[in-house]
């Protein structure tokens, strides 16, 4: 019994408490899922609980330090040797790459199209922290102050790993391409066939959905990011097709692919800031003026094309990842 200004009030029963807290949870979830109203609160709470993450990361750090102490010298020497032999090869490739990139930019300019080009990249350390069961997330030891933004691409030396999903002050979370809530627009490197790679929750597979049996795709095909949707830059390797099952009962192929990036190995990732290659002003302006003049019918017939499944599905499947990055538009 509680006494408040002469009134006797019974402490709320167990069931009442549960109902109240359940409603509170549902309210929080709705606010969080629809429109990200809780970003500030989440950022604050993340700062508050960061020590727990640091505490959990200690054992691995200490283990690594001990291993380094006992055979650090040899492994470092071997690594230096390997890197030294690798460097000339990479440099040679880079020479060709720069020429091709310049040529590509020139061709795009002639066509009047723009593409996301990665300009700035920063190496970020991962915090060794386990993710929620059956989700694939990593904690990055960089945050707002380093200029991270929601939906920023995260890559490593081999391909795309995922994208930033929450930005904290000092630490951020990124969801990997294998997370069940993630989808990334890709295309087959061999022939430009567009598709979407969905995460499954399994550590080393993504599934390619909505491709019909007549699609030209076969095991071993490399899938690269297509740049559609505006989140990821074009041309980064994403996955390799592993298995294709054509079940006549299903309307689409069942395609399993293996991510190219080393999702569970390295301690470091690259964060990239894609920027649009700048368009010549005279190309852009007429298109903008034309738009309102166009008859309504033309606009209407155009719409379904723009909302065809490959382009629209990422937004439906993953509202968070597909949000266009505000900082990238020139």
């Amino acid at each position: 019994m509680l006494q408040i200004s002469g009134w006797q009030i019974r402490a709320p029963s167990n069931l009442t408490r549960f109902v109240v807290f359940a409603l509170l949870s549902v309210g929080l979830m709705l606010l969080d899922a629809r429109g990200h109203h809780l970003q500030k609160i989440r950022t604050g709470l993340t700062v508050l609980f960061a020590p727990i993450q640091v505490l959990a990361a200690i054992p691995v750090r200490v283990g690594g330090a001990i291993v380094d102490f006992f055979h650090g010298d040899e492994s470092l020497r071997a690594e230096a040797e390997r890197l030294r032999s690798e460097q000339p090869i990479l440099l040679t490739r880079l020479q060709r790459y720069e020429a091709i990139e310049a040529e590509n930019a020139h061709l795009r300019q002639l066509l009047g199209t723009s593409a996301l080009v990665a300009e700035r990249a920063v190496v970020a350390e991962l915090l060794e922290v386990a993710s929620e069961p059956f989700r694939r997330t990593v904690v990055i030891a960089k945050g707002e102050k380093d200029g991270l933004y929601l939906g920023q691409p995260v890559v490593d030396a081999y391909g795309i790993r995922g994208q930033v999903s929450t930005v904290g002050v000092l630490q951020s979370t990124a969801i990997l391409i294998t997370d069940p809530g993630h989808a990334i627009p890709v295309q087959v490197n061999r022939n430009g066939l567009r598709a979407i790679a969905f995460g499954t929750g399994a550590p080393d597979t993504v599934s390619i959905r909505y491709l019909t049996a007549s699609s030209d795709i076969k095991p071993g095909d490399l899938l690269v990011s297509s740049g559609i949707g505006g989140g990821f830059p074009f041309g980064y390797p994403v996955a390799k097709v592993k298995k294709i099952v054509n079940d006549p009962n299903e309307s689409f192929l069942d395609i399993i692919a293996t991510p190219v990036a080393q999702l569970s190995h390295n301690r470091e990732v690259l964060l990239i800031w894609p920027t649009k290659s700048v368009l010549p002003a005279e190309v852009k302006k007429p298109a903008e003026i034309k738009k309102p003049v166009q008859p309504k019918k033309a606009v209407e017939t155009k719409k379904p094309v723009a909302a065809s499944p490959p382009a629209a599905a990422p937004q439906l499947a993953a509202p968070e990842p597909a949000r266009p990055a505000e900082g990238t538009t020139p």
Partner: protein
Amino acid sequence: MNLSHNARRRLIIAASFLAALVLTILPWPVWTEQFRPDWVALVLIYWCMALPTRVGVGTGWSVGLMLDVLYGSMLGENALAKSLIAFLAVRFHLQLRMFPRWQQAVVVLLLVIANNLLVLWVKNLAGQAPSTWGYLTPSIVSMLLWPWLFVILRDIRRHGNVS
């Protein structure tokens, strides 16, 4: 220790939850992931059973919210699941105390399964459900761990004179 009885109780309970949270996000090889027990649920069930007037739905909700923040999942997702566990554990604490250890473990299994299904259901609504059956194994590991964890926490409670 010169702490008052209340302060000591709070300290011990908070420390046990902190340990559970750290164990939850402690990194292990990826393949062990589907065997990782639900530490927070186990500790929560114990305290709800032992001190139902002190630890209950509110505590469960707060710890669940902490989990949500640490996981980066939707806020309220694990909070809802953990308050359900706390509600059921408090509701049936008298029966739970009477049960032999193995029977308690079976109840723990059911509670953790309820927790996982609720989380899975919410994830499904948000379109993020994993396409594996592996979400049932953590509850079985939690069940197997319960007798040991029960003894450890009981000793801590008796030694710390928490009531």
